[in-house]
């Protein structure tokens, strides 16, 4: 199996660093970005299996990134990882809009996140096979 390609977007650098340190040794190809221009560049240059998106960031929102991904017709699965809590309202909205999953920070465990990424990649693979 090819390395799962992950794009992680968050305005918390430490969070991204931690993700990289966890996912990289386990065979994931992870790219990180903190600001909008960087994000767009990466999305344009490379196709990702999974995008981990924060919801509210300076200059750009997770919503917008998801819509952009849709607009460039790449099959990337979008997983929101955010500290934005509003009793599920945003979560429902985003899932309806086609997000693969919505995780609240602090995430319950890195293992669970990894499983989720794997699952998403698997779903994506199955979908492309069809």
């Amino acid at each position, binding site marked *: 199996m090819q390395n799962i390609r992950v794009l992680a977007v968050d305005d*918390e650098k*430490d*969070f991204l660093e931690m993700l990289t340190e966890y996912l990289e040794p386990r065979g994931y190809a992870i790219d990180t970005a903190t600001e909008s221009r960087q994000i767009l560049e990466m999305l344009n240059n490379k196709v990702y299996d999974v995008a981990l998106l924060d919801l509210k960031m*300076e200059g750009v929102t997770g919503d917008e990134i998801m819509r952009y991904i849709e607009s460039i017709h790449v099959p990337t699965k979008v997983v929101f990882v955010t500290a934005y809590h509003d009793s599920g309202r945003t979560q429902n909205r985003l899932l309806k809009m086609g997000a693969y999953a919505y995780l609240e920070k602090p995430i319950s465990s890195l293992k669970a996140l990894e499983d989720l990424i794997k699952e998403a990649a698997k779903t994506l693979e199955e979908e492309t096979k069809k």
Partner: protein
Amino acid sequence: MSHISVYSIPPFVGALLLFFTGLFVLLKDFHSKVNRSLFFLTTSTFVWLCGYAVMYSLTSEKQAFLCAKCVYTGTVFIPVFFHHFTINYLKLKNNSGRIILTYLVGSIFFILLWGTNTYVAGVQKFFWGYHTKVGPAHIPYQIFFTICFARCLYLLWVGYKQAQKKSYVEANRVKYLFWAFFVSTIASLDFLPDYGIPLYPVGFLFMSGWVIITAYAIVRHQLLDIEVVIKRTIVFAGLFLASYAVIATFAYLGAALFENFIQNRWLAMVPSVIIIVLMLRPLETFLRNVTDKFLFQKKYDYRQILRKFSEEVLTFIDINALVERTIETLSNGIKLENASIYLYDAEVSEYKLRSSVGIEAPKLAIKDTESLITFMKKSKKYVLLEKSSNNKPLSNDMDHQLSALRGAFAIPLIYREGMIGFLSLGKKKSDEDFIPEDIDILITLSQTLSIAISNALLFEELSETQAQAAQQEKMAVIGTLSAGINHEICNPLGIVRGQCEMFLLNSDEGIYDSKPPVEIIEKAKNIMKKVIHETDRATVITRKLSSFSKPAKGVIHDYVDLEAQLDKVIELVKHELKLDNIVICKNVTENLPCIAADEKQIQEILFNIIRNGAQAIKENGYINIDIVGDEKYVYVDITDSGEGISKENLQKIFNPFFTTKEPGKGTGLGLFIVKQIVEKNGGRISVRSEKGKGTTFTLRFAATWPEAEEQKTI
């Protein structure tokens, strides 16, 4: 009697003065024994003086002799009535025997007077006219007279000394009485011509002295409990005329003097007239001051107090300021040893001390079941400690309770049939008693004060409700902040948890196996540092939040740094604003003065306005905060790039429960409360807005300069 001799006039005037004084006293209280005996005394002196006034103008010896007997009809009874009056005035007991004795002796002389010629023997002619010639029976009378006068003066002096221990006022009255009679005693010089010594009888002079002293004691010290309210102008006019008469006499005498040098009598009067005219103004000013200062000082002070009350004290809406200023003004104005005010606390059924001056350890509360309270409550009347003496035992519980409060005079504060409190006033510093006039004024004042106090209490209650509403509003507002706050807490938590988990999993799963231990330790240290950093970050925001959510105490500090308060608020809202992509921009001029305010309330004000702005913007926009200061004021402009407010709504923006927000987004109390808080902190708030362009709130607070204050103290 073909003409009236000039020598008749002075005794006649003296006689009239005496008679009318006596009559005045009698009419003031016909039923008083004291007043009646004084009337008899003055009548007998009137007979004496008036008799002589007639006698000096008589030309026939026979008529003069009859007149002399008339004169002595009065004179005989002077010591008798004086004695009687003294006993009555001093309320001396066990003296009825002595009184009867004097009347007996007086009657004997009266019989001798009319029955024989041994007492009044005849008349003799002096330069002023006929005068009595006395016989041998006059000598025992003289002894009787001396004994009576000596005893009376002695009794008055002793009475004065005793009254001093009891009451300053009473002592003062007796003192004046003593001196009045002492002066009148000198009039007994008039007996000398009776024995053939040609000394013009100047007794009228000393009797007028008696009248003046007595009248003064009546006006100033309510002698014989007579309260005289004399119009200032009348007293002034009287004094002016009297003084002017004296000056005019001198001027006339001066004219006579000049007549020696200047032949024309009219020309000789010119210097005198000039003197008189020149004296006019200064005399008037002098007398006006004298009347104001000595006779009408009390009323003058009261006017001051009343003015101060209506203009200053009663305008305070803050209950604490109101009671403090009331007590201060009362104790300074009436010069009281102490004063305190107690207000009812329904929760504990007590009257609690709200303010006091002049008492070191004042009683803090008095139960509403104590007789002093129940009496005032029921009767709605004041309680006056009758004689503010130290020796006299207190007559009842009420007096005991009142003196426990160190008061001499308690006035209930009645509002709508209820007693909301009472004033406890201590003795006057002068030790004078409270006179009916004091009481009248204080009662009237207490009525107005009651209204002012109940208004202030109502306002206080309202403020409390407002404060509660403000607090609720604040908590609701914090709820709307939660997204930002959550973000600020959950992000650090996410990092902390992730970093630790990552390290544990990596090492468990052998990912670090190939790495040298030094590198692993370095990695672990790095993670620890991050954990500490992120924990601190979360702590900061929770601290800010909890400090902000505490209710403000409403305590005004003199030098509050507005910018620092703004920074605190920005710290709190910035995460939320960041999430909504709202840029907050702060411009503060250099050397910004401070303001006098409650820091927390200032934060609430800024917070509310900024949050309102953010809500108006919704997403993507800016909030500009400009703070400028000048000598007098500090201005804060808070401008948002929101949708603006329509003209129609702008007028209603500070009304309670007015809101344009969707249901559930605001109670509408926000700006109403903001305005209340701004005004409570001595500020002003205004708003201008244009639909589609945004809104600017302007706050204005009075500037305070801590440096200037320091320089002053240096």
